[in-house]
Structure formats: structure tokens, C-alpha cells
């Protein structure tokens, strides 16, 4: 087989058992092996491709006009970080996969079972320990980053603490979101309890949503703002965000809710404070002081 020379060691490697310290321990020796070099190159290439793909993913996420809030921006940033962090390991895995599949270590294409046995590698302390360490560190990093990001987002959307206890949210607007089969309706308790089928909100003002349902479970999803919370019957859930982009965005239902689930959609119009006040007035409400 043509690949035999790759599987037999380099000239400077011991052919027979010796008492010299294990070659595996010398990274330099290890890196001299041709297949190691090739795999490392493959790793770099694949990792680069993966990282490039992240930009494509985020581009897709922003196709409908987002991000319309810091929360969505933060979500996209988190995606970048997650991908960057896990790209090397993923690249290495796929590199070995590709290399072995492509036949870098040889191939047996015979009908009968192969006559040649591979190297009897039962385990390898260095490899195991390194791998476990790296994976654990990676996981630890992802968790920590995720926890911090979650804490920030929760703060940004007021988590579940009432809005008046929010230091930065003194002028926030309360909005009662009602999901029912198969409509969203929005009530503005601060503005004379006017009700609307479209979510009209002023830009750069923190919004605080109380969400509930009249019947089954819905999920209140302001797509471009990256905010999602279930509307549960018999319970009130909270979320919120600060729109930072003028325009019209999508509000969807993200939990199957029956016949017209697919049509349970409406718009979020982010307008200037003046436009908002005039809208409130023509709805017969009182404008926020």
C-alpha cells in the first residue's frame, strides 16, 4: 500500500523499543510527522471557513431589518463569540474526519476483510488529558460568557422585576400584551388604557411588557428586537427592551396555538416621541408626561 511509509515512523524515530523518553512527549517530534502537519493546516482552513460563515448567519438574521434593539445586537455578538471560541476545536475534529475519510492514512478497498492491522493504540494519556482540559475550558468559557450575557439581557429587558424598581427605567412605558387565538392586542395602561392591534412605540424609550394569554400558550416574539416570552394563560410574564431603530418590524407567535397560528402576526411600528404622542391622542388616550 502506498501509504505504508507514512505509517512507519520517520528515520529519526526509534524502530524498536528503547528506553529513551517517549517521542510523544516532544511536541516538536510530533509536529514533524507529515500527517500532523496536514491535519493542522486543514484545521486552520476549516476554522476560517466556519468563522466566515458566522458573518453570513448574522447577515441572514438582519435580513428583515434588525437589529432594532441592543438586545438583538447583543445576541448577534454572542453568536460571534460562541463560534469563534468553538471554531478551532470543530475545525480540528472535521480536519481529522476529512483526512481519514480522504485516505490520508490509507484505505482498504478490497472485498475481503483487510489483512493489515493498524497500530494498536489503546489510549494516549497526553491526548486524553489535553482534550478533556481543552473541552472543559471551552465549555467553562461558553458558560461564563453566556451567564454574563444573560444577566445583561435580563437587565436590559427588566427580567421579572417591576419597572418602577429599575434604576434606568423611570420613564419606561408599560404595555399589556394579550395573546389570544389568533390575535395580539396591546393595551397602554399609562396612556389612558388605549388598545391597539399594532404595537406602536416611541424610539429610545424603554418598554416594559406584561404578557398573558386569554386561552392557550402563545409566544410573544418581536423578531428584530430579539425578545421572546411565552404568553401563558393564568400567569403574567414580563419582558422588555428599548427600540433604537425607526421603522416597521415583525411581531410573531412562536408557539403553536391552533388553526390560525401561522396568521397570528402583527407589526411593531417604532416612531418618534412626537408621532407617538399624536397617535396616542387620536386613539383618545393621554400622552405620557
Amino acid at each position, binding site marked *: 500500500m502506498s501509504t505504508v511509509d507514512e505509517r512507519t515512523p520517520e528515520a529519526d524515530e526509534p524502530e524498536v523499543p528503547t528506553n529513551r523518553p517517549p517521542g510523544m512527549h516532544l511536541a516538536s517530534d510530533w509536529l514533524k510527522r507529515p500527517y500532523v502537519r496536514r491535519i493542522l493546516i486543514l484545521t486552520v482552513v476549516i476554522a476560517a471557513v466556519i468563522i466566515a460563515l458566522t458573518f453570513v448567519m448574522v447577515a441572514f438574521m438582519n435580513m428583515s431589518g434588525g437589529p432594532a434593539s441592543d438586545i438583538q445586537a447583543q445576541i448577534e455578538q454572542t453568536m460571534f463569540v460562541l463560534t469563534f471560541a468553538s471554531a478551532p476545536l470543530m475545525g480540528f475534529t472535521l480536519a481529522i474526519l476529512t483526512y481519514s475519510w480522504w485516505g490520508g492514512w490509507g484505505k482498504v478497498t478490497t472485498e475481503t476483510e483487510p489483512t493489515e492491522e493498524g497500530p494498536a493504540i489503546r489510549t494516549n494519556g497526553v491526548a486524553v488529558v489535553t482534550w478533556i482540559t481543552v473541552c472543559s475550558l471551552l465549555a467553562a468559557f461558553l458558560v461564563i460568557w453566556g451567564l454574563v450575557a444573560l444577566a445583561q439581557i435580563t437587565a436590559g429587558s427588566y427580567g421579572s422585576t417591576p419597572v418602577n424598581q429599575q434604576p434606568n427605567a423611570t420613564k419606561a412605558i408599560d404595555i399589556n400584551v394579550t395573546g389570544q387565538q389568533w390575535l395580539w392586542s396591546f393595551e397602554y395602561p399609562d396612556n389612558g388604557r388605549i388598545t391597539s392591534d399594532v404595537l406602536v412605540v416611541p424610539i429610545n424609550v424603554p418598554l416594559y411588557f406584561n404578557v398573558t394569554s386569554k386561552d*392557550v400558550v402563545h409566544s410573544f416574539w418581536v423578531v428584530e428586537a430579539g425578545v421572546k416570552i411565552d404568553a401563558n394563560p393564568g400567569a403574567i410574564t414580563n419582558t422588555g427592551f428599548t427600540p433604537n431603530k425607526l421603522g416597521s418590524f415583525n411581531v410573531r407567535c412562536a408557539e403553536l396555538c391552533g388553526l390560525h397560528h401561522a396568521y397570528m402576526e402583527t407589526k411593531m411600528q417604532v416612531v418618534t416621541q412626537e408621532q407617538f404622542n399624536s397617535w396616542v391622542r387620536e386613539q383618545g388616550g393621554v400622552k405620557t408626561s
Partner: protein
Amino acid sequence: MIHQREGIALKRGLFALLTVLIGAAIVAGTAVIVSARGAEPPTLKATVVGKAQTAKGELTHATLDMSIFPNASASQPGPNIPQGEAAMVGAAQGWPFYSPSTSLELPANSLVTVTLHQYDTGGQIYNDWLAKVTGTVDGKASYAGVEKTSIDPNNVAHTFTIHQYPESTQPYFFVSVPVPAQADNAPNEANGYPKPIDVTFSFITGAPGTYVWNCEFPCGTGYVEFGGPMSQRGFMSGTVTVV
């Protein structure tokens, strides 16, 4: 020997192809049958009656005439969903329904006047906001001749609510009109139903698009009375096509 092998390979290839074709045929057949079984009722076109002056200038004026029956009867057979389908979904004579059809077709950029003849009893609606008239011309509807912007939320029979189809390229469209209930002891007339309450309202359609509409009053069966006719096309929900 080799020859035989190839013959076998060819034969097997053909049979594999055959398997795929059979599979495709099964899928296609099922799709056709099912899609035919669940077909929407025949389209109800709004009749154009001429021109009308509106805030948006002179527009084509079309009218639409529908009735809401509390149950099927000899005089009103009810939506003709296939017999088997009816049995499967437990469709009962007692299911209320919009008549003559639930698949509506309206002319684009025109004034549409809808008249509903309402024969059904009712009660309280979950969301008081839906007892308000929304999206019609100057937000009013005429109830037996009286113009109102809202009705008593404790005495609603049904609503006629057109809402957005998940399509951002077509104009946003939302119309919701509550329909008051008959008195429970209203005397029946010859056709077995009480004297109808007539509700008339007009709205202006925009550019062509597809929408859906449904009743928002819990007039079905099951949990919160939104099962049965409420979750079955052809009774209390349908499509609106603006052409």
C-alpha cells in the same frame, strides 16, 4: 459470469427506480386526496355596485352579503364539508356557521360594504377590545340602522375579524366588527330562526393580497369554547383574497 453480474446489477437498478417511482406515486396520491378533502368552500365574490365617494376619493363600491346561523337545519344545510370529514372532526348540527361561504374575494382599492344577517345568541366576549369596531370607515358600524363604535361586551354573538396574513410585502389590513346577540327567547320565524339582526359596515381595501378572517367570539366547543367550529375552516373562519 461477469455478464450475469451486470445483468443482475441492471435489473436491480431498474427495480430500485421502480421503488422510488412507487413511493413518489404514494406521496403524490395522498397529497392530492388530502388536499381535495380539506378544500375550502367555493369563493364568494363581492358584487360591484358602482362608484362611491370616500375619504380616499372616488372608488369602486362593492357589497358583500352574509348570514350567521346558530346551527344547521333543513332550510340551512350548513357548510358542505365532506361527510367523512364532518364525522372525523365531530362536526355537529349544532355548530354555528357563516353562510353562504367563508372564502371571500374582494376588489382591490375599493369601498366594500358588508351586511351580516345575524341569527345566533351569544354572551360575554373574553376581550372587551373586540366589542369595539376597528378598521371600518370612520370606525363605525350600523346595527339595525344605528351607528355605533362599540357594542355591549356582555352581549356579543360573533365577530367578523379580518387580520394580517404573514406577508410583509402586502398592505397591513385589520378589520374587526362585533355582532350583537339575539335575545335567548327570541321567537323563531318560518325558517326556524329568529328575525335576524342586520349589521352593516364598510371598509376600504388596499393593494391586492391574501388575508384570513375568523370569528373571535368563543362560540365553539371544548376548552374556552374555541374548539369545534372555531378551529375548523368553513364554519367560523376563512380566507379573504383582495384582487
